[in-house]
C-alpha cells in the first residue's frame, strides 16, 4: 500500500497505527471539530485533553467508528479508512473502552470478559460455552496485566471502579486490540484507584499497544502520556511531545491559560487565597 505523502508525514519508516489529519465534523450548523490532526504509534500513549465540550467525545467517536468525519483523512496503518460502524473499527484492532464500560454488574467477571465472544467446545447441539478454559484464561490474562482479581466468579458489580476499568482494558487487549481508546477512564475514580488504572494503561502500552487516553485531568495524563493533544471548543490548541511541555504548562493550556490567570487575579483581589493554576485532582 502507498502512504500518501503530506506535510505531517513523519520520517518514521513504518506508518503510524492510527493517524488523522485535518478532521472536521459538523452537527448541523454546529462545528464540533475542526482541523484536528494526531497520530498514535505502537507502544505510545496519545493523550487527548480538553474541558467539557472541547470535542473529545466527538473525536473518539470518529476514531472508534461511531461517527464519520465530514472532512479530513483517517488512516489505519497508513491506509485511508471509512468506518461505518464500531464493528469495522474493532475488526481493524481499534477497541474502545467507554466510561460506562459495557459490563453487566450482576454477571461474574469471567462471563463479562467473554461476553459476545464466548469460547465454545463440542459440536452441533452440544456446542457449549467452554467455562473451564474461560475461567482459566481470565485469570491468566488479568494476571499478565498485573490485575489481581480475588475471584473471577464474583459479580462485576462487586469490583471497585478501578478494577472494572482494568478488567475492561484487559478484555480489549486479549481480544486483539492494537489501538486502545480509553474514554475518561479515571474521571470517576479516586486518586488511588486512578493510579491503579494508569498502571494498566502503562501495562497495555508496554505490550506494544497504541493508546488514546481521553481525559480532562492533566495530572492523570502527564505521567503516562507521550503526546498531548489539547482541544478547546472543537479546535486543537496544539499537539506536544512530553519533552516540549511541562505539566504546569499543560495544565495552564488546558484550563484556558489567560482565562485562568485572570480568574486567579480576580480571586486574589477579593481577598481569597489564590488557588493557583492547578485544578484539584479528581476524586
Amino acid at each position, binding site marked *: 500500500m502507498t502512504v500518501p505523502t503530506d506535510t505531517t508525514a513523519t520520517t518514521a519508516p513504518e506508518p503510524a497505527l492510527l493517524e488523522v489529519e485535518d478532521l472536521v465534523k459538523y452537527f448541523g450548523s454546529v462545528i464540533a471539530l475542526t482541523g484536528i490532526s494526531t497520530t498514535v504509534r505502537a507502544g505510545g500513549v496519545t493523550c487527548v485533553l480538553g474541558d467539557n465540550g472541547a470535542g473529545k467525545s466527538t473525536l473518539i467517536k470518529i476514531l472508534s467508528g461511531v461517527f464519520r468525519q465530514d472532512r479530513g483523512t483517517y488512516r489505519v496503518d497508513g491506509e485511508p479508512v471509512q468506518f461505518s460502524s464500531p464493528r469495522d473499527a474493532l475488526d481493524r484492532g481499534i477497541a474502545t473502552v467507554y466510561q460506562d464500560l459495557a459490563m453487566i454488574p450482576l454477571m461474574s467477571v469471567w462471563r463479562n470478559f467473554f461476553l459476545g465472544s464466548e469460547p465454545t467446545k463440542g459440536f452441533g447441539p452440544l456446542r457449549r460455552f467452554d467455562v473451564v478454559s474461560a475461567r482459566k484464561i481470565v485469570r491468566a490474562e488479568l*494476571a499478565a496485566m498485573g490485575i489481581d482479581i480475588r475471584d473471577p466468579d464474583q459479580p462485576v458489580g462487586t469490583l471497585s471502579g478501578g478494577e472494572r476499568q482494568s478488567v475492561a482494558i484487559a478484555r480489549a487487549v486479549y481480544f486483539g486490540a492494537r489501538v486502545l481508546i480509553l474514554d475518561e477512564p479515571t474521571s470517576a475514580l479516586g486518586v488511588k484507584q486512578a493510579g491503579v488504572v494508569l498502571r494498566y494503561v502503562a501495562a497495555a502500552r508496554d505490550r506494544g499497544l497504541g493508546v488514546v487516553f481521553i481525559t480532562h485531568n492533566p495530572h492523570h495524563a502527564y505521567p503516562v502520556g507521550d503526546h498531548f493533544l489539547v482541544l478547546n471548543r472543537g479546535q486543537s490548541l496544539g499537539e506536544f511531545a512530553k519533552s516540549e511541555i511541562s505539566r504546569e504548562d499543560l495544565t495552564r493550556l488546558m484550563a484556558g491559560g489567560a482565562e485562568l490567570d485572570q480568574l486567579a487575579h480576580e480571586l486574589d483581589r477579593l481577598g481569597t487565597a489564590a488557588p493557583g493554576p492547578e485544578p484539584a485532582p479528581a476524586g
Partner: protein
Amino acid sequence: MAARTPPGIRPEGTVCMTTAAPPVDERVAEISRLRRILVRPELGSVVGAIAVFVFFATQSSVFRSLDGVAIWLDPASTLGIMAVAIAMLMIGGEFDLSAGVMTATTGLVVMILATEYGWNIWAAIFASLVVALLIGAFNGVMVVKTGLPSFIVTLSTFLMLQGLNLGVTKAITGTVQVSGLAKAPGYDAVKPLLAGTFTLFGVQFRVAILWWIAVAAVATWILMRTKIGNWIFAVGGNAPAARSVGVPAAGTKVGLFMTTAGAAWLVGTIGAVRFTSVQANIGIGQELIYIVAAVIGGCLLTGGYGSAIGASIGAIVFGMAANGIVFAGWDADWFKLFLGVMLLLAVLTNNLVRRYAEEVRR
C-alpha cells in the same frame, strides 16, 4: 458447578501484586462458602419450599405420603414448565402477560383442527406449535422494534388472544368449549406421551412431570453452559452494554419470547390431550402465577438474575401450597393469601440477596 477454585486459593499471578499493583485493599482471600451459597438465586425458594413442606407435612399425613407427592407434583409440573420459560424471559429482562391465555390458544388450535376439521392429531399439534411460535415472534419483534415495555405489549397480546380464543371458538363450534379429542385420529399414540402416567415406587405419577424436568434441565444447561445463556443474562442485566460488545440483543429477546410461546404450546397441548376438551377461557390469570413462581424462584423483576431450577422450585411451592391447604382440611380460599405472603417474602429475600451479591467488597 465444575472447576471452582476452592476458597482460600488465590489466582496465579498474585506474585505480581507485590510489584505491579499498589496495596489497594486488605484482600480477604477466602470467599466464604456460605457467601457463595447465599448469592445463589435459588436459595430463597429452597428455604421456602422446605418450610412449606414441613408445615403441611405436619398437618396432613396424605400430604407427606408418596401418593400425596404425586398429587401436588401434578399442578406443579405444567406450572413448572411455564415458570421455567418465564424465568428465562425475565432473566432476559422482559415479561410475557400473554403466556397464560396462550396455553388456551394452543390447546384450542389442536382441538379445533383435530375435531372440527378432522386433522390427524400430530398435524394439529404441529400447526399449533407454528401458531405459538408466530405469536411469540410477534411479541418479541413488537417489543424489540418499538422499545415499548414488554408489559404493555404482551398485555395487548393477552387481550387480543383472549378475544380470539372466545370469538373464534364460538364462531366455529357455536359454544365456548371444544371437546371430543379422544376420537381424533392418532389420539391413542399421543396420549401416553403427553397425558400418560408412569409408576415409581408403586405410585402413579403424571408424565408431565418428566416433561417439566426435561425443560428445566435444558433451560439450566442453556443458561449456565452456552453462549446464548450468557447473552440472556447480559441482555437482561444491561442491554445497551451487551449490544456494544456484539451480543445480538434483539435476536436473543425474540428467541426468549418464542421459547415462552413454545412452552405455552407444550402446556396447552398437554392439557388438551389430557382432558380431551378445552374451555375457551382457560389460562386467564395464570400468567401472573408463572411470574410469581419465577420470582419465588429468585428471578429479579429488573432482569439479569434468576434461575430455571429456582423457578421450578417456585412451582413446587405453589403445588404444595395449593394442595396442602386442601389436605389440611382448610378452606381453599386461604390459598391466595398464602401465595401473596410467599411472594412478598420471596421479593424481600431476593432484594437482600441481590444487595449482598452486588455489595462492593473493598
